[in-house]
């Protein structure tokens, strides 16, 4: 099985020599400016948010809620990337080797995204959280410690798998693949626990007294979906810009599209499972969350999520064309990223605006700033290393991968 070319037909053979220009970010490539562009966006976006937010008491509350939505948006994409890399190693996946480095570059943003949560912890806690229940768990000290632990674990995992992968580029040591596989399993366990509790702390506890044991999985499902949407966009954009030529093909894009479809369905499965049990039991302490979101324009937002986050993209993504055509998949991915943003907005904002959706300038500036931090870190990682794991033992298998 080690020789993937054996059963392949002659037409699927690829050139043996890959061009350096498609494996590295070439000098003068526009993507080399991503860190600079990201930094400008971050400074402008976050600076404007702080300037507007500290003008009045009401604006300050809006500021931290908008900041939270923006931070969660980019954080969830990075967490999805970490999940993808962990699953890649633990399942010994072959097809995804050529796109793994892009995912590693996305997950490399995790240590930098921790910075976005520092102002929230330092200044935003009073505006965001009004805990009256479970004081022994929900108190500021323990909350700060937990948040630090989550980010420490995520950053450690991202750095560990990024470093071993880069090390293999230099040494070509096959043992590194084995080491990454072995560490990916405890890594997945840690990932599952930290993401679950992170969602409990930062999203569920916004709604005082409300709890749902499936909530962590719901947040994870949306995160993974958002990651695959961003992943598809990144890969399509890279190929359009002359990167990864003859390395990443329509076949790899097709598989990313399949995973996107999977997590569109998985998100809906989780969202409905949570809704059904609460609706059926009809217990006041549980229904408060949905009662709030049945009010005013939040109900419309929920309906948009039902159709836009699930029904329409689900049926569109069933088609082979939508997954293999770059323009179609890019359009769907952009749409799904917007839906993921609305999902987070729908989770966070009803507490601040109980009667309905109230768009704010701060929503836009905070989002731009958070995306700027994310882009800067992502662009920095892209520049630092090759665009594919150059000496991964499964690289030949991945290069010749085809969907049957």
């Amino acid at each position: 099985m080690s020789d993937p070319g054996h059963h392949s037909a002659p037409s699927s053979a690829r050139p043996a020599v890959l061009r350096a220009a498609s494996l590295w970010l070439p000098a003068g490539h526009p993507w080399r400016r991503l860190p600079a562009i990201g930094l400008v966006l971050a400074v402008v976006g976050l600076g404007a948010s702080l300037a507007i937010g500290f003008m009045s008491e009401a604006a300050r509350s809006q500021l931290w809620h908008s900041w939270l939505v923006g931070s969660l948006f980019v954080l969830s994409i990075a967490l999805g990337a970490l999940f993808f890399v962990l699953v890649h190693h633990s399942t010994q996946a072959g097809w995804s080797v050529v796109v793994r480095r892009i995912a590693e570059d996305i997950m490399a943003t995790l240590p930098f995204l921790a910075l976005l949560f520092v102002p929230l912890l330092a200044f935003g806690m009073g505006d965001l959280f009004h805990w009256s229940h479970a004081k022994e768990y929900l108190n500021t000290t323990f909350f700060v410690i937990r948040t630090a632990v989550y980010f420490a674990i995520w950053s450690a995992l991202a750095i560990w798998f990024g470093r071993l992968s880069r090390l293999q580029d230099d040494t070509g040591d096959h043992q590194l693949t084995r080491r990454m596989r072995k560490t990916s399993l405890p890594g997945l366990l840690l990932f599952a626990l930290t993401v679950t509790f992170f969602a409990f702390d930062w999203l569920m506890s916004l709604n005082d007294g409300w709890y749902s044991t499936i909530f962590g999985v719901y947040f994870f499902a949306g995160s993974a979906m958002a990651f695959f949407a961003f992943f598809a966009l990144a890969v399509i954009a890279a190929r359009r810009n002359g990167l990864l030529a003859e390395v990443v093909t329509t076949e790899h894009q097709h598989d990313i599209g399949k995973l996107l479809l999977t997590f569109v369905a998985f998100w809906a499965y989780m969202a409905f499972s949570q809704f059904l049990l609460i609706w059926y039991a009809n217990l006041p302490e549980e229904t408060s969350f949905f009662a709030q979101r049945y009010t005013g324009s939040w109900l419309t937002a929920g309906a948009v999520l039902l159709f836009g986050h699930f029904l329409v993209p689900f049926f569109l993504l069933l088609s082979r064309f939508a997954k293999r055509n770059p323009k179609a998949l890019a359009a769907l991915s952009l749409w799904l990223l917007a839906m993921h943003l609305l999902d987070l907005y729908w989770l966070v904002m009803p507490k601040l605006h109980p009667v309905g959706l109230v768009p704010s300038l701060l929503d836009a500036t905070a989002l731009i700033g958070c995306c700027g931090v994310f882009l800067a870190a992502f662009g920095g990682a892209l520049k630092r290393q090759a665009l594919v794991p150059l000496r991964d033992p499964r690289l030949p298998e991945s290069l010749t991968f085809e969907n049957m």
Partner: protein
Amino acid sequence: MGLLRPSLPPGEVFGALAEFATPAELYHACEGVRDAGYTRWDAHTPFPIHGLERAMGLRASRLPWVVLVTAVLGAVSGIGLQGWVSTIAYPLVISGKPFFSWPAFIPITFELGVLGGAFGAVLGMLAFNQLPTLHHPLFASQRFERASDDGFFISIESWDPRFDAGRTVDLLRRLGAQEVELVASSSEPAKPGDATTRATP
């Protein structure tokens, strides 16, 4: 290929069977047969060969459409049955909820959708492959047994509009076949060497 294969009287030529040495030779031969315009033919290999469907010029399978239709039918019947029972046939008030409580109907609607899709996939696959087929004329060829071991074959059936015993055999030879034989139609498994006519060079 094709759902309707005419039944031939025993003894008549069913088609030409050609054996190739390697997957690569078979692959290129398939391109040749495809380009010659044949439509009623098939390739037989012990394992899947990547890209062979393109070399053969096969169109995308219609099976996904069958699955889509049967899955939607399953889901519609699921919600339809529950809705009819709860609102018309035997309406009951359950925990103060409306008769048509759609959230409660979703799990069964989903499951029946999956069930319909699964039935569509399995039965549709059997139908498109004309299975179960208890006997196939190609079984008359002893050599053909190796299609499940180490042999790579192309069979062109005689009801193909372009089929002509002489010219088809010539084409297969030119495409690099090691051996070409004309297989006679039979309704029963033949005794070894019985119904097979070796095409004379």
